[in-house]
């Protein structure tokens, strides 16, 4: 039992450990072949796997969306491993809509647990119980979502079990047909054979296998892996270098029409009187459609035309009397002030204390003795846009009582449910084709476009229509990364050791707003505790006898959503900047200070930090005018440390020269993908840390509307990036997001090392 639990993922660890209390073993997600109906020439073995009779190729039901994170390759590797097949012979087919394909690990990851409770294999009883309960709930909900850096963690057990079970059925079928003992059969490259010469490929055995019980099933042990842990090439790459990869915007069903949108310039505004005369007189413009709000969208106007350019021109030509937000205009400055106040309240004993020990307030109030220090600081972060390079789009057709959607989405099932509601049909009458996503980063966990596109498609007489937002609409009507603030206070003893820590943070809760938008039936008036903007503080890895980490969840009215690494994206900046401030106040080296302060029960954190420092040459001399900063942060189950080298140009502009990244993400399925995800996250995080800001003017208008005022890091500005992965036998944890959070504090800490200036507000420049 003990040894096996080491192999289990965060989710199924909980289930397996509690087997006997309630049954949630990994195999409960195996499903039946009926969930994946076979077509002519195919045979289904379970809900994940079909075999093509003629070729013997394996068809894998793929519920997760490919947005550059490599999930289509990594999940296929798991299946190819257990079925002893070359990777290219596992072909992907879309999974259906059954709850079986829901993402369980993503929901389990929402639990507000400190790392002391969640170390793999040493989970506390509390953590196990909570994880089991949430897993059970998530399994019932069955929401198919690609997000929360959870795809591999979620698939790790169920997919390998599904493939291993299919393998045993194929072997069993051969054993029965040939009258040979199972143990004497060989399995290689999709062929089953026996020493005396009998030989059959999977396709030839599949029909019998479907009727053969699997018998004893075990997973391939790590020492026998040929694919897991190797850098298999990404299967989506060839189509992405010759222009043939189809994104949402590239869907071209016959008879396609094109729509553009016009939404109020201010957040929460809506169109009043409209003069569409000039717009409708443009050639190839067909009609105007008024759109009610859907899933968080604002009331809007859409114009249908025979091409996207005309549709956009016509949308711009509409003369609209805009009406302001009914509850009053949003004002970014005022919200920032309210966040600062809320953070101070939380630090002064208010808010929800996600974590507390001893009596931090009393310890901080005690008079200072000789050599003791009190350190306090207020940090702030702005709203941010996702800015996926593929602008928001959805293609819809409503014809003969059926709805067809083609879209780049992270939540196909939720898209389907909304399309059915808008079109007034049963969900079974809606078909969703998920394309490649030209970036997701959380923006495509939303379904606002689905409601809008289906509404337009109800007006086009059965013709499919592609709704495409302009870049300006994308920036002005995002579901933004919430702004946040944190007030931190700590007491250092005469030896410079932290004795008490008080953190009060504030930010808009994301999950309840998202639930209201995409799962309205399940959202309630009761606002459950939500950690989305508290994560990254409550789960810090440092040891303290006295601490109170509290958060006030706010509700500003600004549309907020999940943004790559969610609350960690700014809370890591708050926490790791403050830790750096403490180190300097204590007169200690930031690396040594962290290593001494880290909880001894979390040796992986120290190991990751040491690895990054060693590879970066921490402590070694740098050229004049260059300094290093470091940061350590755990998110999505993975621990990442980064050491960043910074130089300032004569005009004060930053030049990040090098980022050394070390991480522990459990077992690595595909190291080439992990390395690229770290590069991706660091570059994404640098854009935000350097310049990223969405400002909401006093009239409620978002000031940024394009890449000119929301700059992204360019190739010329990209530092050298080196990634080092700590070997691990723990189950895989997140990779897509955990590289983002440490970048901002590493940059701020490098700036302090270079200039002595402490910047406590993001972005650090601009």
């Amino acid at each position, binding site marked *: 039992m003990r040894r096996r639990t080491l192999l289990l993922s965060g989710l199924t660890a909980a289930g397996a450990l509690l087997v006997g209390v309630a049954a949630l073993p990994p195999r409960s997600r195996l499903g039946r072949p009926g969930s994946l109906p076979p077509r002519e020439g195919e045979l289904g073995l379970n809900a994940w796997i079909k075999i093509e009779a003629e070729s013997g190729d394996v068809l894998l039901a793929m519920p997760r969306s490919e947005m550059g994170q490599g999930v289509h390759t990594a999940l296929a590797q798991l299946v190819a491993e257990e079925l002893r097949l070359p990777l290219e012979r596992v072909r992907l087919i879309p999974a259906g809509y059954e709850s079986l394909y829901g993402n369980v690990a993503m929901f389990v990851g929402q639990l507000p647990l400190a790392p002391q409770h969640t170390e793999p294999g040493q989970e506390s009883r509390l953590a196990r119980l909570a994880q089991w309960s949430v897993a059970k709930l998530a399994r019932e909900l069955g929401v198919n979502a690609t997000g929360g850096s959870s795809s591999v963690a979620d698939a790790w057990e169920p997919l390998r079990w599904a493939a291993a079970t299919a393998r045993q059925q194929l072997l069993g079928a051969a054993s029965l047909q040939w009258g040979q003992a199972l143990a004497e059969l060989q399995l290689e490259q999709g062929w089953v054979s026996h020493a005396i010469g009998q030989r059959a490929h999977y396709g030839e055995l599949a029909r019998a296998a479907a009727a053969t019980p699997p018998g004893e099933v075990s997973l391939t042990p790590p020492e026998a892996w040929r694919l897991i842990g190797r850098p298999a090439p990404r299967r*989506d790459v060839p189509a*992405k270098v010759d222009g043939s990869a189809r994104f949402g*915007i590239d869907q071209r069903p016959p008879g396609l029409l094109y729509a553009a949108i016009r939404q109020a310039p201010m957040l929460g505004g809506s169109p009043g009187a409209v003069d569409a005369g000039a717009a409708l007189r443009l050639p190839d413009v067909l009609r105007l459609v008024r759109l009610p709000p859907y899933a968080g969208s604002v009331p809007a106007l859409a114009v249908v035309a*025979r*091409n996207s350019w005309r549709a956009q021109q016509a949308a711009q030509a509409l003369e609209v009397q805009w009406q302001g937000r009914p509850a009053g205009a949003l004002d970014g400055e005022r919200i920032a002030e309210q966040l600062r106040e809320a953070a101070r309240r939380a630090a002064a004993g208010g808010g929800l204390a996600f974590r507390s020990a001893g009596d931090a307030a009393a310890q901080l109030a005690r008079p200072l003795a000789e050599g003791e220090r009190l350190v306090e600081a207020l940090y702030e972060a702005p709203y941010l846009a996702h800015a996926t390079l593929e602008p928001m789009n959805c293609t819809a057709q409503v014809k003969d009582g059926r709805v067809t959607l083609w879209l780049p989405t992270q939540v196909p099932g939720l898209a389907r449910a909304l399309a059915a509601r808008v079109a007034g049909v049963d969900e079974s009458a809606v078909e969703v084709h998920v394309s490649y996503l030209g*970036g997701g980063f959380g923006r495509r966990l939303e379904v606002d476009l689905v409601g809008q596109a289906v509404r337009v498609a109800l007006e086009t007489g059965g013709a499919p229509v592609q709704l495409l937002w302009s870049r300006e609409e994308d920036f002005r009507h995002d579901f933004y990364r919430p702004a946040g603030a944190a007030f931190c206070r700590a007491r250092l003893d005469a030896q410079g050791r932290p004795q008490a820590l008080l953190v009060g943070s504030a930010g808009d809760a994301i999950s309840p707003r998202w639930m209201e938008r995409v799962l309205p039936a399940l959202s309630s008036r009761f606002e459950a505790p939500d950690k989305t903007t508290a994560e990254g503080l409550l789960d810090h890895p440092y040891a303290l006898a006295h601490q109170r980490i509290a958060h006030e969840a706010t509700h500003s009215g600004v549309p907020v959503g999940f943004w790559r690494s969610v609350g960690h994206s700014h809370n890591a900046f708050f926490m790791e900047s403050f830790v750096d401030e403490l180190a300097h106040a204590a007169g200690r080296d930031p690396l040594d200070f962290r290593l001494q302060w880290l909880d001894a029960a979390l040796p992986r954190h120290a190991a990751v930090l040491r690895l990054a420092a060693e590879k970066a040459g921490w402590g070694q001399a740098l050229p004049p005018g260059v300094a290093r900063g470091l940061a350590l942060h755990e998110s999505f189950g993975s621990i990442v440390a980064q050491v960043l080298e910074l130089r300032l140009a004569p005009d004060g502009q930053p030049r990040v020269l090098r980022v050394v990244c070390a991480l522990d993400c459990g077992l690595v399925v595909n190291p080439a993908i992990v390395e690229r995800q770290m590069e*991706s996250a660091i570059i994404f995080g640098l854009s935000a840390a350097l310049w990223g800001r969405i400002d909401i003017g006093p009239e409620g208008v978002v000031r940024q509307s394009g890449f000119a005022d929301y700059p992204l890091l360019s190739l010329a500005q*990209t530092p050298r990036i080196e990634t080092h992965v700590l070997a691990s036998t723990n189950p895989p944890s997140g990779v897509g997001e955990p590289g983002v959070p440490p970048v901002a504090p590493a940059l701020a800490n490098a700036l302090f090392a270079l200039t002595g200036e402490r910047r406590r507000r993001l972005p650090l420049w601009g």
Partner: protein
Amino acid sequence: MELKINGELKTLPEHARDPAMPLLWALRDGLDLTGTKFGCGVAACGACTVQVDGEARRSCVTPLASVAGRAITTIEGLGPDHALQRAWVAHQVPQCGYCQSGMLMAAAALLRKNRKPSDAEIDAAITNLCRCGTYPRVRAAIHAAAAQLAGAKA
């Protein structure tokens, strides 16, 4: 109206031949050549980069009238086996992939003029935006393709 695209004369359909229409939309909505992407509409991101007479051009701000009779190359006409595409696969450059057509077209235009670009020359020529952060791999793949082309010449 006809355009010379990827070595072939293509007739634009009626709804995609306004001389003021940006080339991007004629390609995508008129000819279903969807490899060229829309990212911003104001030449800021480079997702729409094509080549006109061998020069990189941002097709979202290139009116049809300005390219009549000129040789247009899109990602569909780059390969199928261009040294850059091979290098892109070998270095596993793309992530989401949306900016990659434009990246490749800009890189191909660079290599036409400069067989062995330095890092600084790559910095200056490749101003396309990538939200996934594939830049380090883009740089490495351009160097690899240049080296491969130089080797083939030798």
